[in-house]
């Protein structure tokens, strides 16, 4: 296509444009509805592709008394928004967790927000908090930088809103179902199956392992897209000096948050099976969690050490299934109420 073809100096093509466009739009609309229905019938669900946009919108929503969740995908899969509302009698929390991310930079940003006196729920995984390679901090830092650069750009925000609230509600806008990806998949002979994880507008991310083919248990090393290999190879465990530096950095911002009235509750959601063994070998509890727990400024709790911890099936060693999320959320709400007092 070349735009000489759009030479506006020449005579314009004539015709019954009104009728042409009406038929075109009607045909396009019908085709899109049929296309959307087809994928839904095949089991695909709407999912927010633009997670960075959703994160930025969530970050912009923080108010002085908000409840904010920081951490990793583990808590994203485990929290059920409806159960949260029902048990905490509150709005769903603002989800700012990121997959495989260390939340230190985000905690520091919250600590710098003097007016913030809400609740921070911190999903603690030593593998990411004590990663000295810097890999686990990159995404958070990039998003904070993006927020700072674009916060005065109205079009950036409207586009983020559209991508979350319009594209995110249509199955055919799922990146795996876009035309070019489908063409490539067809050429390779493997059409996409319904996703295991779906991302909802509030950045909750239920994982439905029942959709997995093959269904667990998987290979103990390469199972679930190499999740165990990721645990084995990602980042670099902090040495003694680095550990002390990270602990000091964390305590500084926890105290700062406490100083302006915010409360931080740190929960450690257990992993299990092979994944738990790898995490324990690389990041021993005694060396990391036990030294983090007594830091001032936060209440820290290892959930599986609580006497009434309900056991969950742990399909990929790390994330809860969506059918377990309501039960987990109820349990967490009970823990939070216990730590925060009856008013919460």
């Amino acid at each position, binding site marked *: *296509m*070349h*735009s*000489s*073809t*759009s*030479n*506006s*100096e*020449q*005579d*314009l*093509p*004539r*015709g*019954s*444009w*009104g009728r*042409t*466009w009406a*038929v*075109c*739009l009607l*045909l*396009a609309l019908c*085709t*899109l509805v049929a*296309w959307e229905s087809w994928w839904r019938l095949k089991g695909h669900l709407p999912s927010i*592709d633009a997670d960075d946009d959703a994160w930025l919108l969530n970050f912009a929503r923080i108010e002085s008394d908000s409840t904010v969740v920081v951490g990793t995908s583990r808590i994203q899969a485990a929290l059920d928004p409806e159960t949260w509302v029902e048990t905490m009698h509150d709005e769903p929390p603002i989800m700012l967790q990121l997959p495989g991310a260390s939340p230190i930079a985000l905690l520091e940003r919250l600590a710098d927000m003097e007016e913030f006196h809400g609740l921070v729920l911190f999903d603690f995984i030593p593998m990411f908090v004590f990663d000295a390679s810097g890999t686990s901090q990159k995404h958070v830092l990039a998003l904070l930088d993006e927020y700072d650069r674009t916060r*005065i*750009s*109205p*079009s950036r925000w*409207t*586009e983020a809103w*559209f*991508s979350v609230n*319009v*594209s995110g509600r249509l199955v*055919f*806008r799922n*990146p795996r179902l*876009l*035309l*070019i*990806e489908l063409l*490539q998949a067809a*050429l*390779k002979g493997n059409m996409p199956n319904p996703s295991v994880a779906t991302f909802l507008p509030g950045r909750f991310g239920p994982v439905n392992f029942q959709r997995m083919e093959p269904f667990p248990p998987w290979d103990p090393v390469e199972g679930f897209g190499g999740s165990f290999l990721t645990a084995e190879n990602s980042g670099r465990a902090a040495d003694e000096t680095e550990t002390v530096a990270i602990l000091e950095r964390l305590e500084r911002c926890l105290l700062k948050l406490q100083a302006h009235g915010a409360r931080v509750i740190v929960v450690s959601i257990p992993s299990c099976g092979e994944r738990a063994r790898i995490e324990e070998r690389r990041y021993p509890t005694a060396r990391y969690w036990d030294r983090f727990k007594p830091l001032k400024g936060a209440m820290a709790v290892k959930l599986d050490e609580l006497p009434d911890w309900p056991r969950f099936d742990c399909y990929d060693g790390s994330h809860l299934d969506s059918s377990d999320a309501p039960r987990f959320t109820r349990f967490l709400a009970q823990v939070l109420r216990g730590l925060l007092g009856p008013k919460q």
Partner: protein
Amino acid sequence: MVFSSLTFIVFFAVVLVLDRVLRSWTARKWHLLIASYVFYAAWNPPLLILLWLSTCVDWFAAKGIYGARTQKVRRIWLLATLITNLGLLGFFKYAGFLLESLAALLGAFGVAYHPPALDVVLPPGISFYTFMTLSYTLDVYRREEKPWDSPLDLALLVSFFPHLVAGPILRASRFHPQLVEPRRATSDQLGWGFALFSFGLFQKVVLADGFFAPIADQVFGKALRAGWAEAWTGTLAFSGQIFCDFAGYSTCAIGVALCLGFRLPENFNSPYAAIGFADFWRRWHISLSSWLRDYLYIPLGGNRRGPGRTYVNLLLTMLIGGLWHGASWMFVIWGGLHGIFLVLERRLKLSIGDARWASSLPARLGAMLLTYALVCLAWVFFRASDMRSATHLAKTMWLGGRSLGLLGPVDYVVVCGLTFALLALHWFTRERSLADVWSRTPGWARVLVLTSLILMVCLSGGDNRAFIYFQF
């Protein structure tokens, strides 16, 4: 706000409805001016001040030049507008580059100089609207245009949102009559305008972003690992990407303006079917190349002062044209290469003369393919992130190199197929326009094409890339 965003679709729908509702021509011009400022401010509201500054300076400079009694005063006014406009452009676009280049130069002489880190935001479209406002004042200075009576008209010329951030670069003399005479889009203009907008979006969202960009990014991102086939495929992919991206933007701009009843100048005309580089620059980014011709090449003397001076003028014009694209030596090299090709072509034409064989179909086709191959060679320097990557790719393309598996078989098929289709289409439409082809298309086929375009745009475009020329 980019044309391919939902934000723009909503914005444009509102603008169009208001434009149809308002009756008075002045009210509709005010409406378009405010809409244009909203469009620009949507990126970064404070940058609107630069647009206002540029408009005000050229308004007063043109009046000053026209009313001056002596040549000296006229020159002072001209100098004032040149310093302001080029000064703003220089500061926002080239300050960091100049400081870094100075540091490198001093470093070569053993002087350590660490320039301050400038955290300057590049205002979108500054290169485009600077050239446009300059053309207005320069035309008044050359007595080819009188200063306009209405500041509203000048403000609208500078800020008219369809062309504001990536052209086509308007000429005051051609746009002025459209602002003076009341106009409202006819049903043909509306219908064809929407069709052009759909064609433009298809080029941008489906072809440039969907097919070409991922492959070009893959090769140029790991340029040092590319073999012969990968270097060529990556470069062909970029040649397709930049054309579909920029021509797509221009087509959208022309379509949007047409829906509002305005006609913008053509910006592309089957450039990859060009036979030679002079022909290429008559077909690629026409509004820029004609600006450079009228306000730089011809004032430098053009081809009126002998062959030697002509070659120098050509080289200088293309080097500056290269630098206009961005603050990097890679763009200068790209411009320099085009300058050299133009000089060589000029010399070659002198020796070939009017030979009969030169106008035969095989010779013309061969010349077109050679031109395209050399254009691709120059694109390597335009796209590569650094000199090392560019020279490696260029060397590999022409001297060969071992492939390291950067691309899969599907990528080769996609790029070769689409490039062939693009070249064939350009060759077929060398002397035709889409309007001609469309006029001869039956109604059912029009419906089929437009529906397919809409569907393909809706079903593509996950990553929402900005238009390449926004950075210029």
